[in-house]
């Protein structure tokens, strides 16, 4: 025990210097023109699209193979919640766009308020998602559940895809919310302002992409004709 403590004690200065090095790195400033930052963001978004693209490939194949079961399984989804969620995300896209444009005009408080609205809408989206999933799980429908395994493979695959795709999307919303909080803090601190708005603008791009993904996921899962 004492040995371990002594060891920690002996490396403590090293850790301190290490943290200092990391801090210095975070503080480092580079000249970066805005078009470059935005280009990097768009490339990242393309990568994200293809991450979901893999899932869309799988979806289209299974949809083709099991179109009837997909239709049946989709009926079990909660369409009202899906629709409300769509409206929530579309509106949050509007608020973040307004937040960016008001920041560019120098109206920081308006920008901050729109940002908070976006955050709340995103939280509401995740809350409804939670309600929806809890309901499904209560019905015994989740991956590998005995109830689900009794059904035919088309429905098993539908719910497999449903949980993976919607789950991955939800994870992206969560990441987006965390970034929104960070942006809010940076705006309050004045680090992100009318002269340096690119972090917020890139956050907006990411948030809109998450919205676009939902625009496709919603009809593919909830509205199968």
């Amino acid at each position, binding site marked *: 025990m004492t040995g371990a403590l002594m060891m920690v004690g002996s490396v403590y200065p090293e850790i301190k210097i290490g943290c200092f090095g990391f801090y210095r790195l975070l503080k480092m400033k580079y000249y970066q023109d805005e078009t470059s930052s935005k280009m990097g963001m768009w490339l990242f978004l393309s990568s994200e699209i293809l991450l979901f693209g893999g899932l*869309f490939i799988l979806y289209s194949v299974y949809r083709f193979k099991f179109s009837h079961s997909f239709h049946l399984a989709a009926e079990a989804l909660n369409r009202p919640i899906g629709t409300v969620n769509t409206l929530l995300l579309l509106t949050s*896209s509007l608020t973040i766009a307004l937040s960016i444009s008001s920041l560019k005009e120098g109206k920081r408080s308006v920008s901050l308020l729109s940002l908070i609205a976006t955050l709340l809408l995103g939280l509401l989206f995740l809350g409804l998602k939670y309600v929806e999933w809890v309901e499904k799980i209560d019905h015994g429908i989740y991956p590998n559940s005995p109830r689900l395994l009794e059904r035919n493979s088309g429905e098993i695959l539908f719910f497999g895809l449903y949980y993976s795709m919607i789950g991955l999307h939800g994870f992206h919303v969560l990441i987006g919310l965390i970034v929104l909080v960070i942006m809010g803090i940076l705006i309050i601190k004045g680090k992100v302002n009318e002269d340096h708005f690119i972090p917020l603008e890139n956050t907006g791009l990411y948030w809109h992409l998450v919205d676009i993904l939902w625009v496709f996921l919603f009809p593919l899962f909830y*509205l199968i004709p």
Partner: protein
Amino acid sequence: MGMRGKPVFLSPKTYVWVWMILIFLTGLTVSFAGMDWGRWGMVILLLVATIKSSLILNYFMHLRYEKKIRLFRWIIPGILLLLVLFIGFTFLDVVFR
């Protein structure tokens, strides 16, 4: 940002208009889903989704105003083409297996 460092300014009015169209299109898809369109149903749903996302891309994400830089002009069509090719080639296997 435009081509040479001029920020893109869209009035809040434009954004609200686009948002209203998006909400309208959502209502349209949901009500379409209730009707029986046969095999066209999926096509219509995807078409509306494509229109909605192109509105978001062009207005909310300002892609429309960045087209002077070639990369921004081609990136989304390019990726869609790639994805269509990936799905198409996979279907060459799945359909004819």
